């Protein structure tokens, strides 16, 4: 993450997500999977609890993030401001 902070954030709606992990494949740098398969911000990426559902993204990851938003079968993802 650059000193200037994230370019955007990926918001995960946990009430929709079923943890099949398409997004984690598209954004391997930003997301890993937790014990149960749900997307988890990569180590060191989030500082505060509130960020855990709004994963910071670099500018280089935006394209893949847009794909993830479009391809998530449960419409659980959204890109929000930094």
């Amino acid at each position, binding site marked *: 993450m650059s000193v200037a902070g994230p370019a955007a954030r990926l*918001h*995960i*709606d*946990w*009430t*929709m*997500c*079923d*943890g099949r992990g398409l997004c984690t494949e598209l954004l391997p740098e930003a997301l890993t999977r*937790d*014990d*149960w*398969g*749900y997307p*988890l911000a990569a180590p060191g990426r*989030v500082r*505060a*609890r*509130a*960020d*855990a*559902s709004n994963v910071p993204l670099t500018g280089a990851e935006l394209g893949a993030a847009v794909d993830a938003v479009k391809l998530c079968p449960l419409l659980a993802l*959204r890109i*929000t401001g930094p």
Partner: protein
Amino acid sequence: MSAAIATEPLAGAPSGRPAGSRLFAAGAAAGHAAHLAAYGPVPRHGRDWSLAQELEASGLTGRGGAGFSAWRKFAAVDRARRPARYAGRAGRSVLIANGAEGEPLSFKDATLLHNAPHLVIDGLLAAAEALGAGSLFIYAGAARLPALAAALAERSDARHIALLEAPDAFVAGQSSAVVSFLETGRALPRDVAGRLADGGFQGRPTLVHNVETWAHIALVARYGAGWFRAEGTAEDPGTRLVSVTGDVPSEVVLEVPGGSRLDGVLASAGVAGDAVSAVLVGGYHGRWVRPSGVVLGGGGVPGGGPESGSVRPGAGVVHVLARGRCGLAATARMVEYLAGQSARQCGPCMFGLPALAGAMERLAAGRGGPELVREVGRLSGLVAGRGACHHPDGTVQLVGSALETFADDVRWHLAGQCQETGGAL
């Protein structure tokens, strides 16, 4: 003010009017006439008076748990309704008094609704006038509704307030769950990226306050900010209701000034200080503390370290654990309950809380080594912040405070002993 003891919600008349109580000044199960006799009519204010300004000056914070500034929420709804009004759309705001009280250790809202329903109604009406609100609701458990219906029927100015029956579930009182309930009939928290002020029920600006907050708003509207601040401290003005439960002579609701010392609150409830091991403040989503030197409310003790600091009262729960009782076992039972109360919408909450409960249960039973403490920490990190509501975060806070406050007990448990109950595990 001396702490005032209120009656149990459905018990008979109290022994007398609680001296100095603000919220229960009209006595037990006060009807409208008793209410007016105690508080007087709502004054007619001049044109330069504004409820928003009085609320801001009062420093009133929400009494439902989160403790946000009541004025900020009010102002956000005030701002959000304006563009809609100018655009001529139906953007009239929605006001909700939340008395769901899903927290098992809290009964102050039930006590308030039973004894002082007209204060809650007055608070809603005062805000409705200030905000030009369209719809007014009181949301409370089934047992509260008949008395509330009777209170509404007693007065001619409150017929448009609708009652909603809150389901009996821990998360039913989360503000977004209240709005979901209105829209879908199911009290499930939902993913709220924005604030309810900008679009809650049917996309309308929505103001959800705890019922006690509405009662204080009614009093601020009557007597003003200066009066409100005459009790409590500069950082934590006014009074608040607390439910005292656990190892106590009898469970009571007390009205205490902001910034009260926790040991003083316990003494008012008849609890001897040296019989207390620890106190859970704020409920199942709260924190365990050792009571000595701790202040209930914002601000804290000048110059005090963490040991003599302040603890956020949350929804006003004070739950006493006597000496000789194991805090880890008590916490493990609570986490198990909380895991069962997950609304099972969000994966990390649905799977993570039972895993956390299992680890706490092993810790309470002394089955495991130091890796168990690391596992509790790791699972806490996995669920925190990863749900549509604060249920996982609140649970993590409870667990973290238990590991801190009962750190000695953790060491003994890992060695197969419980120091508190004095035996092998």
